[in-house]
């Protein structure tokens, strides 16, 4: 008889709490799980193992390999047989993109991020509460920031929301609908690249075109298009969902909110703790493929298996975090793995941290009486997405 396998991602008993399985299942170093596609993967549960595997070249990110598990039946997500997501190919292109996203470059965007935040919050303050924070701040801020960074004109920014919704769908949309959205985005980016070739700007797509047109083998035309699309698709939704979730989480914990209001200098620690809490979703997008047998905690994961390094588990590991089940914004030693680690460490992490810091600081300063307009358990998540978006985040002041 086949052993029982848990479905993954887990369901949450409460929208702002980590799933109970994260504590229960960590007794085992590895558990087998069933993905939304019905395929099986090995989920690694301990911090030390997760961190080591994220740096292990025996785990490939190339899920186009025959036999690799699929996350979703309808959505191929990052899988393109023409693109190699492993080093050295991946590293070559990633370094081009990283130029716009290094910690020092991102810090120079701070005044602009503050300006956009102030504009959005001015508009929010004119409205009569309750308002949906997703609509007033959490989505518009990262959309505008990433579009300016990569060079998408302001008037086109609204169209992106629909395309990313399709891209991030696990089961809500059929494959036809997802393919159609991706084709529309592709068409849009083709036109944009033609326009930027004629009239380059001070933006990432123009910079990538300049590298491509040197014809020195660093970037092909196909790669230019693929990465331009990817940057749009992953460039804002993650930050948007995280930002909304951060606000909901802080407002649902009055003791922690008070600490932060009394000492705004705690904000960087608060942000790391909010990231550790893994509010945006599971680790399902960290799916890998074992090219060799790999031993984890005495268990051999056979070559050809699919493996998920469980950052959500690792972030709750009591051998690394003191009382991990406690949400504590004063925590100083916080090496969480929410941005992953190793060669696929989130390229946009500095930008995400900047946006979170500016948005949360400004929001708390401008609305001293900010609170949730519904009970915390009434906030609804969508479960059919790679990121577990909140349907809306009603706030009042």
């Amino acid at each position: 008889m086949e052993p029982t396998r848990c479905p993954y991602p887990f369901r949450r008993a409460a929208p702002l709490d980590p799933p109970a399985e994260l504590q229960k299942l960590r007794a085992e170093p590895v558990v087998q799980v069933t993905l939304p596609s019905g395929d099986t993967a090995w989920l690694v549960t301990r911090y030390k193992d997760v961190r080591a595997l994220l740096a292990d070249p025996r785990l490939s990110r190339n899920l186009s390999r025959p036999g690799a598990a699929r996350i979703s039946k309808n959505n191929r997500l990052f899988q393109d047989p023409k693109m190699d997501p492993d080093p050295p190919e991946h590293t070559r292109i990633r370094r081009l993109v990283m130029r716009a996203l290094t910690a020092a470059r991102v810090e120079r965007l701070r005044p602009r991020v503050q300006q956009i935040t102030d504009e959005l919050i001015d508009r929010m303050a004119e409205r009569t509460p309750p308002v949906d924070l997703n609509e007033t701040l959490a989505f518009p801020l990262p959309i505008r920031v990433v579009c300016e960074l990569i060079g998408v004109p302001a008037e086109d920014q609204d169209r992106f929301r629909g395309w990313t919704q399709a891209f991030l769908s696990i089961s809500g949309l059929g494959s036809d609908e997802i393919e159609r959205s991706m084709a529309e985005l592709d068409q849009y980016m083709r036109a944009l690249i033609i326009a930027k070739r004629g009239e380059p700007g001070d933006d990432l797509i123009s910079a990538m075109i300049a590298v491509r047109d040197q014809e020195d083998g660093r970037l092909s035309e196909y790669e230019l298009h693929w990465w331009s699309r990817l940057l749009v698709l992953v460039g804002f939704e993650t930050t948007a969902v995280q930002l909304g979730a951060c606000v909901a989480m802080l407002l649902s914990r009055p003791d922690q909110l008070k600490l932060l209001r009394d000492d705004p200098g705690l904000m960087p620690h608060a942000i790391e703790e909010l990231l550790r809490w893994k509010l945006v979703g599971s680790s399902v997008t960290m799916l890998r493929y074992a090219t060799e047998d790999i031993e984890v905690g005495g268990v051999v994961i056979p070559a050809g298996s699919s493996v998920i390094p469980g950052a959500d588990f690792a972030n709750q590991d009591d051998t690394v975090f003191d009382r991990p089940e406690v949400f504590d914004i004063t925590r100083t030693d916080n090496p969480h793995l929410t941005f992953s680690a190793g060669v696929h460490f989130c390229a946009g992490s500095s930008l995400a941290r900047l946006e979170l810091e500016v948005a949360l600081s400004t929001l708390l300063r401008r609305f001293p009486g900010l609170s949730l307009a519904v009970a915390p358990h009434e906030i609804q998540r969508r479960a059919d997405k790679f990121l577990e978006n909140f349907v809306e985040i009603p706030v009042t002041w």
Partner: protein
Amino acid sequence: MYVTANRDTCGGCGLCTVTAPEVFGQDDECVVTILLPRPGPELLPRVREAAERCPTGSIGTAGDHAEKGPI
């Protein structure tokens, strides 16, 4: 103390350059460079912090009696 950095594994995020800007830089490809291979003791806490925060584990330190790592 020597500072070591592995340019083959560096992911280019640049966290080290804001944590200890006197010690770490980045080249045109965003790969880590060492500006100050033997920082004074006053910089040690921030070099350690840079090593701990490095997402690819590419930064290390070696004492004067240890073998000099790859720079």
